[in-house]
């Protein structure tokens, strides 16, 4: 006996997540950002009520820091209370950010919420609002912050259920940009284990890895830092009586992070560049559909302004000028240009430079060599930043960077040095 039903698959709410990677921001932006995860949560509740879903599954990382935010816990309990009033059940697993070992406020959760335990896979029947059995929901929470075990391997279906939804917080097929928790492979999930829908969490980028059975990362509900760009939200999943699955993305974010590149090739003066950027900002704000925008602009390309833009002070001044023109009316969406990077190039003749028997030529050849050879670059860069990486605190704080050693450094350094040398030459000449 199967019935059609609809549910929402959300994950990685990261409630009360502080905004990382933002050196400074106007008060209103800060306020909006620190409220945005909650706002997204409220949006989720609204969406669930509006779409009249039968239940919600949340695949982990509800809180950003399990031990910290009382506010998040209270807020979540309040929203769940609302869902309870509308008869919408909630199935939750906890992830690496909010393992069950974390501190809990002494709160009574409403009866519509089921939190899966950490000891083993559990399952719960999920019902339609009208009372028919819709599906079984399976899941297992993280007991501790680190889960290296392949917990998906132990998931088993209960054959009597009409539909099987598995909740899993983990890294499928080893996404290198996320911690390798609860590792498993896609083929494992899509194999003949009988599950119809794997509701995944942990990876903040929304994507559908497989269909029938569906293996889906819902992504996080609200972008929280400059790296989490684009629309964020949840999936509305409609399952027909014939078990056909239809997924609709529901955006929940109230502040959207965007990163755009802008070429300086067309701009002949700073004023012109400013005007171009302003109209660009206006366009983005118009397209935002009522959301606020956190915008990062990367100035790219080669042009006359490069020399000026290579001075950090100039870029900062430009940014400040653009920021000054932003307005923050209460209740209106805003656009905050939080960062502007100049990754522009001088008008250098690279080919000539490559041939040149000069220090600059030598330097260019060296950088090309490093660019070509990853290992070489890593050695080089590690050596270069060893002074800072060796610092106890910095080394620990920024270990990602020291580990990653992004190649953009090389590019920027090349531009910087060559620019300096040539600039110096030009000045001398």
């Amino acid at each position, binding site marked *: 006996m199967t019935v059609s039903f609809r549910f929402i698959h959300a994950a990685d709410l990261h409630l009360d997540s502080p905004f990382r990677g933002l050196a400074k*921001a106007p008060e209103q932006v800060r306020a909006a950002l620190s409220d945005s995860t909650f706002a997204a949560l409220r949006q989720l509740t609204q969406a669930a009520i509006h779409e009249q879903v039968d239940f919600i599954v949340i695949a982990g990382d509800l809180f950003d820091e399990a031990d910290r935010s009382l506010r998040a816990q209270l807020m979540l309990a309040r929203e769940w209370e609302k869902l309870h009033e509308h008869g919408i059940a909630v199935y939750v697993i906890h992830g690496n950010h909010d393992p069950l070992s974390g501190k809990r406020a002494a709160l009574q959760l409403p009866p519509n919420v089921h939190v899966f335990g950490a000891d083993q896979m559990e399952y719960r029947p999920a019902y339609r609002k009208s009372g028919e059995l819709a599906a079984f929901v399976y899941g297992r929470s993280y007991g501790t912050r680190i889960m290296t075990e392949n917990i998906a391997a132990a998931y088993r279906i209960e054959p009597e259920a009409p539909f099987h939804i598995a909740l899993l917080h983990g890294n499928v097929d080893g996404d290198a940009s996320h911690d390798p928790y609860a590792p498993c492979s896609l083929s494992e999930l899509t194999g003949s284990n009988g599950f119809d829908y794997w509701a995944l969490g942990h990876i903040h980028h929304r994507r559908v890895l497989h269909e029938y059975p569906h293996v889906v990362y819902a992504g996080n509900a609200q972008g929280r830092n400059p790296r989490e760009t684009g629309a964020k939200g949840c999936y509305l999943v409609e399952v027909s009586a014939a078990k056909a699955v239809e997924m609709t993305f529901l955006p929940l974010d109230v502040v959207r992070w965007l990163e755009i590149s802008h070429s300086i090739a067309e701009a002949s003066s700073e004023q012109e560049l400013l005007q171009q950027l302003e109209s660009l900002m206006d366009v983005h704000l118009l397209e935002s559909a009522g959301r606020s925008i956190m915008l990062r602009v990367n100035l790219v390309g080669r042009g006359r302004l490069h020399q000026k833009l290579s001075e950090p002070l100039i870029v900062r001044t430009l940014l400040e000028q653009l920021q000054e023109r932003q307005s923050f009316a209460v209740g209106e969406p805003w656009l905050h240009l939080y960062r502007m990077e100049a990754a522009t190039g001088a008008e250098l003749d690279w080919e000539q430079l490559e041939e040149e028997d000069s220090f600059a030529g030598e330097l260019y050849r060296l950088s090309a060599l490093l660019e070509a050879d990853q290992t070489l670059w890593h050695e080089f860069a590690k050596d270069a930043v060893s002074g800072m990486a060796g610092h106890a605190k910095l080394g620990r704080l920024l270990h990602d960077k020291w580990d990653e050693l992004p190649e953009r450094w090389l590019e920027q*350094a090349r531009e910087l040095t060559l620019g300096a040398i040539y600039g110096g*030459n030009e000045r001398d000449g």
Partner: protein
Amino acid sequence: MKLIKAEINGYGQLNARQIPLNAPVVIVYGPNEAGKSTMFGFIRSMLFGFARRGLPLERQEPVNGGKHGGRLFFSLAENELFVLERYASDHAGKPKLRGLGGELGTQEGQSDQASQETNSEAEARYADGTLLLQTDWERQFLGGVTERLYRQLFAITLSELQEVGALSGDELGRYLYQAGWDSGKTIAAAEKRLLQEMESLYKPRGSLQTMNQQLKSLEQLEATLRKREDSIGVFNELTAQTTKLEASIARMESELPEKAARHRLMSKACSARPLWLRKQKLFVERESVAYAGKISEAAERSWTELLRQRAERREEWEKHRQKGMLIELQLETISYDEELIRLGTETEALLQASDSMRKLAQDRAELASELREHDEMIARLVSSIAPEWTERQLRELQVTVADRDLVRNERQQALELLRSEERIAAELETLSQQELEASLALEEARSAAEREQARRGRSGGEGFEVLPGTREALKGAWNALDLALREWELERVRAAGSDGEAAETRQPAGGSGAGMLWVAAAGAGGAALALAVGAGEISLAVLVLAGAAILLAAAAMVRSRSGAAPGRERSGQQLGRGQGRGSRSTAASAGSSNAATLESREDRVMKALEVVVREPREAAAALLAAKHHRSPEHLLAAEQARVQLRAAVEATLEALLASERLIDHCSELAQRLDRLRAHAAGRREAAAAAAQTRQAAARQWAGWLAARSLPADMSPTAVLEAFELAEQALQRLQQYDRLSAKHAAAGSTLAAFAKQAAELCGHFEEAAAEFAADPALALRLLHAEIRRHAAAKQDALGIIARREELNMAKHAADLRLQELAAEIAAQLAAAGLAGEAEYALALEHRRTLQFIHLELSKAELEIAAGLSEERLRELELLFEGYDEEQLQAMQSSSLTELEELEREKREALEKMGRLRQSMEHLLQEEEQQRLLAEKEMTLAQLESSAERYAVLSVSAALISRTKRIYEEERQPVVLRNASRFIEKLTEGKYIRVLTVPGESGIKLETADRRLIDSEVLSRGTAEQVYLAMRFALAEEASQGAKLPLMLDDVFVNFDKDRLHAVAKLLEELSCERQIIVMTCHEHVRDALQRHCAEAALVQL
């Protein structure tokens, strides 16, 4: 560059001194303080300028006089000779250069410009002596070597030699670029900028740098965050505390009532103690009057009741007695007459009847008048029936229904008879009228017939007189005439045919034209006439038509004149025959035959005319006029005659018809007259029969009337009327009888009444007196009197009755008094008391007892108010167990306890409030959030700084790596040279000098391939290594302008072998570069002199 001579004007201790230097190797030998180092400094100052005044040791102001400065002679090439002049006081110590040409009398030490012309450009340029900028000087003549480089590479003292050991790889490298690459400065500048920015961003041990500051504030934030209370912990703690507090508050709330009750009890005990004491006293009092309690409430009540009743009775008895006396007095005043009272009823009846009597009298009068009226009415009715009738006949008359029916039948019959008689009479009348009319009509008709006859006879006089008297004869005669005439005509035409041929041919057209018309008209007329004759009827219309046709034909004939005659004849024939073309042809064939035929025809006409006309001759003459005279006039006359004849015939025909009709009419009328007369006779007979019947009926009716003594001439209708009247009269009669009876009865009643009234009135004088005037008034007077007496009697009787009642009541009261006395006695006995007084006292005591009871219960109530049974018992125990003071103490202690508990509760509630508040505060708090945000922002700043720093580091590394590449490419020459030199210096013990990238300092490779850090070398060896490096670098650095190498006693730490080795090396090097060695050691001097063949010794 090769120095030729130094001319010191004043420098340090030296003045006015000329030192020849013109040799590849110059050995300056002198004891200490001879001025070796001063000279050394002089040459440097000449080349690079004086040191600042701040460095007097370097500046070397002249102490023994002379102008600070001097001149330096040098040559660039074999023939290029210059003199450099520099005085501190002149041109701010700028160098002044003058070219001297190829030769110079150096030996004489001449410093003037006595020199020969040179072809060198430079010489030419500087021939006059030119002031140069230091930089230009350095660039042009010193190969870009700066003072610093000069000091390090070319003007080497021991201390400077040692510096080589302290050189880091980087610095060494920089020398290399500075020495070997002309953009070195830019790179250095770029590097410097990078380093500056890096240093402003971060220093490992710095504190002012951006990142260091960010780190610091991050640490502070983290510390603050760490220090902050864990909000969840606090929340949970608060929740737990709240729960605990709630429990304790609940406990207190449950305890509180108990305590309060206890306290209330104690308070009560204190306050109620006087009451309790009073209660005890009352108990004692109660004992004393307890006996009175035996007297029950009922007893007391009955006692008082008895006493009250007794008093009441006594009073009552007295009242009765007084009343009785009063009544006696009243009774004595009343008197009345029994006799009169007895008459009362009768009188009343009469009085009541008197009204009806009066009415009766009135009625009687009315009755009398009514009787009169009836009498008159009856008389009138009876007389209206019949004058001789009286009341007797009336009473005798019996009218039955049968009688009435009979009368009605009679009347009906009489009516019917009368009607039939009238009808017959009317019929007779009509018939005689019709008879008369019929006879008149017959007369008229006969006379009309006669008149007609007469008229016909008269009409024969004019025109043709037509003979035949009947119509048929006339018609037949006419027809025969007509036929004869036509035949005659035809014959005549035939006879005249030959004459008319010419005319006929002459005017055929006209004839034919007219003929056509004529034929048509004649045809039509003929047809009409034939038809009329055939039909045998005379129709005026037909005749007119025929006449018209004939006229037309005649007109046509006139028009066609004589020529048209045959045509006319033909048409005439046609007319006569009605039809027949064949006859025409026959006639035509016979036409012209003979006159005989014509004659016969005339005869026939004559004969026919004889039948028709009275005077046939005339008629024939008229008709046949055309026989002889064929003129038109004749023809016309004949035609007219013919028409006249015909008209006469026709008129006769008509007259005949009319007379026939009249005769018919006469006979018809006669028949009708006969019929009428017969009918009238029948009718007359019927009338006679009806009259007989009527007479019989009248006789019978008269008999009937007589039987009823009714006037004989009365009609049945009158009888019916009389019946009605008689009935009315009878009714009246009956009423009259009744009324007269009533009248008589009333009269007797009235009389009886009057008699009785008179009798009664006799008993009372006044009434009797009055009776005569008005019996009714008298009666009323009497009645009033009687009523008065009766009332008096009634009063007396009432009084007597009351007297009796009083007596009885008095008696009853007496009895009751006795009963009461007995009861009182019994109650006294029951109470066991002697007398009423005692009983009264006992009752008093009883009341006291009751009061005590009341007081007790009041006290008890007061004590027990608001207390349960249990509490009351406790209270009782308290009263019994403790005295006043103890109770007070207990009360105050319970109060304290209660207050304590309440205070605790208040405190708990306050604490609860605080907890709630802090919970609220905790939930509201955003400090944590702010700190976290701050932290993240700081972290972000730090990251961004770090990023920048990393980029800078990489940039620096790029530059440094590039530099190293340069080092590795360039260094081999330097190091190779250095290696060569060291090998020579150490006589093969060390074979290589090298630098390791990333490591500071210089390393040595021994002959057995070991690497040895320069720092661990012995001083001498180290100095040899450094020297070798210096030589190599100097060689590499200034290849353009080979500056002289000046060594200030640097071999002091060399052993003999190495000294010789170095001497040999110097000899070798001096081939390319001038070398000036200063020493204060003889062995050094000697060694050098031994190995350097061209060495010049300068003794100071």
